[in-house]
């Protein structure tokens, strides 16, 4: 087994060394860096395009998906090897997006053979970009109360309503939506999960500016939009099961994203504190409260990252994912808020800057990140909902 893996590693390494575009090597590995794909794709460079094509050809844009749907057909262990080799050369992912991490896995779990054959290969090749149509203005925490309606008309559905908080809707090609197909039954039982081509007439999008400025979020309006009945996933009125599976997946992802994003934050904050506040005779950050909060945030970050590691180590050791994972979303988002808050406090008067040449650019960024972070405990399931879930499912409270 390990021998086969070693052989695989050698093969991957040789191929990457030989073929991967030199211009992309040594890139900083930000988690949102990479090509999003889609009909309106914009490549950062011709090498980015070449990199996508060559990886997609091997199915390595979706390494663990079955080869019959264009995937790489790799085992988890092989996937780890591939990832570590990409990291070794500091290569960006060839393709990112909600097709790969959200609708793709959902189709693999709930889709019919025909649906998989139709929708997965274009995702692997980066030809179709997907977005998510879940929340509505009246349905936030109570998602199942959604009202966007889909009325059957032969082998089609006609959709009317509005979605909100759809990331990158204006750049996407297809949207996976929750729609109401039955109003005569309890709310969870009348929801259908359907795929909609956003090029169809009647779909319009509008960006949502936030308190922190521009954002990828959009509203999406449906006015007599036609969707094919064959694009219903998991059965008519059966969409809630599909939706919940996807949501659970999303929350784990969010926790991990925050874990990645906190790494290295400590040093940055400490530097800012020295720059803005200076040091006392002992060489300590001159404001003892700020210094104490720096330690608090840094230590909380470390404890958080160690918890992420503990969960992963447990999984590696063959333990079932423990209930600890339920805390990642709540804690990770609050931690990010506290960090941004501290960063603004450290910046003093600069921390209040909104625009203007007199403010240091990094201070302006910090201010907007602080504002943006307020949304972390709301989006993707509010902290209140997460705590309810922990109380009920993890602690077994009645």
């Amino acid at each position, binding site marked *: 087994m390990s021998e086969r893996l070693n052989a695989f590693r050698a093969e991957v390494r040789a191929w990457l060394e030989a073929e991967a575009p030199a211009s992309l090597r040594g890139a900083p590995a930000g988690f949102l860096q990479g090509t999003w794909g889609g009909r309106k794709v914009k490549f950062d460079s011709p090498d980015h395009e070449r990199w996508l094509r060559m990886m997609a050809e091997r199915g390595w844009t979706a390494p663990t998906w079955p080869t019959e749907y264009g995937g790489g057909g790799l085992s988890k262990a092989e996937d780890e090897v591939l990832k570590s080799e990409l990291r070794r050369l500091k290569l960006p992912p060839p393709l990112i997006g909600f097709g790969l991490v959200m609708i793709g896995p959902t189709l693999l779990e709930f889709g019919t053979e025909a649906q998989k054959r139709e929708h997965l290969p274009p995702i692997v090749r980066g030809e179709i970009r997907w977005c998510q149509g879940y929340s509505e203005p009246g349905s936030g925490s109570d998602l199942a109360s959604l009202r966007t309606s889909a009325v059957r008309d032969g082998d089609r559905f006609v959709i009317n309503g509005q979605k909100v908080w759809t990331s990158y809707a204006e750049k996407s090609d297809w949207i996976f939506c929750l729609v109401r197909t039955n109003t005569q039954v309890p709310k969870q039982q009348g929801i259908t999960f359907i795929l909609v081509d956003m090029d169809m007439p009647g779909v319009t999008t509008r960006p949502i500016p936030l308190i922190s400025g521009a954002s990828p979020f959009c509203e999406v309006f449906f006015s007599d939009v036609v969707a094919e009945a064959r694009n219903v996933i998991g059965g008519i009125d059966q969409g809630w099961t599909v939706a919940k599976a996807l949501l659970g997946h999303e929350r784990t992802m969010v926790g991990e994203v925050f874990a990645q994003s906190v790494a290295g934050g400590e040093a940055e904050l400490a530097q800012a504190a020295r720059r803005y506040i200076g040091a006392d005779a002992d060489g300590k950050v001159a404001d003892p409260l700020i210094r104490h909060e720096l330690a608090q945030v840094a230590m909380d970050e470390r404890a958080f990252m160690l918890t992420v590691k503990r969960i992963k180590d447990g999984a590696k050791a063959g333990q079932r994912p423990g209930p600890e994972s339920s805390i990642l979303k709540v804690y990770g988002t609050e931690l990010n808020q506290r960090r941004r808050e501290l960063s603004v406090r450290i910046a003093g008067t600069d921390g209040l800057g909104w625009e203007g040449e007199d403010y240091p650019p990094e201070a302006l960024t910090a201010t907007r990140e602080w504002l943006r972070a307020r949304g972390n405990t*709301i989006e993707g399931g509010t902290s209140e909902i997460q*705590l309810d879930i922990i109380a009920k499912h993890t602690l077994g409270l009645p």
Partner: protein
Amino acid sequence: MDLVLSDEQRMIRDGAASFFRERGGVARMRAYRDAGGVGVGLWRELAELGWAGLIVPEAHGGAGLGMAEMAVVSEAAGRVLAPEPLLGCAVLGASALGLGGVEAGLGWLAKVASGEAVAALAWDERAMRGETARTGTVARRDGDGWRLEGEKCDVIAGAEADVLVVSARKDGGEVALFLVEKAAPGLTVSAQRRVDSVSVARVGLSGVAASAEIGDASVLDKVLDRGRVAAAAELLGVAGAAFEMTLAYLKERQQFGVAIGTFQTLRHRAARLYMALELARSAVMAASRAVDAGAGTRAGEAVQMVSLAKARASDAALLVADEAVQMHGGIGMTDEHDIGLYFKRARVLAMTLGDGAFHRDRWARIAGY
């Protein structure tokens, strides 16, 4: 010093509330922002109502009232996020001109009270972190007068000011206040936009001739303390209005078939916001009365009350602001909803003239721990 509003104070409160309501409430701030956020808004109208000169002595054309009355107006302004420089001009500017009792300063007061002239105080600097003892701007003696050298930041109403009162160290020693007119050569004023979309000025002083020295460090302290009381009162208004919007939302927003205000967590948290606001209100009332009582109080007592008020109001407002956005959920994060405007103003005022931590440190210093 009873902690109740007098009949006159109630009248002023109600008058201010209805004025701001008639002028469009918070929608006016949004329009002001979308128009670029410069200028002093309805300053002339406010002056006609007597608010620009509210604490200016009657002898100098003002109403001769105290901080207890000013606090009532500031709170009403805070409730609608009024962009006018009540704090910047009517409190800091007018006090800086007048409290030193020097003719050159007093001479401006009538124009300030009538709204003809805008006055501003330029005291803060980027590296000071609120401590006047760290003032870096220097005044060098030049014949009978002084020339100023340095850079000031966050001067409220600075871009619109006709006259500036600038703090500087006399030959690098004691801090004093100097009068600088708008046209003075060497003076550069540039507007900057803060998160609340009200612009403040960065002021460069390059050998600027001061037209007079009008106060010492103790005057500056008194001016700042008046500003702190006004800022605390304004914060009460900002946070109070944000809290009421949130309370209304809790009653109206339905999820899971019920108003979200039926969820116990939100109820308890709302009750805690209410407590924070009520305690802040007591402190602000006490501080305004202590400042007005002046010499009548034990040394340090008024200063401690001011720090108590500013700390409490700042902390309460930040807490309310955070919770208001959270309880509004997604809509609270959108630029379209007014709660975000309150969130931003709360932050700016909380940091202005010292936040909670600053004032707890100051209290500890005075109390001698």
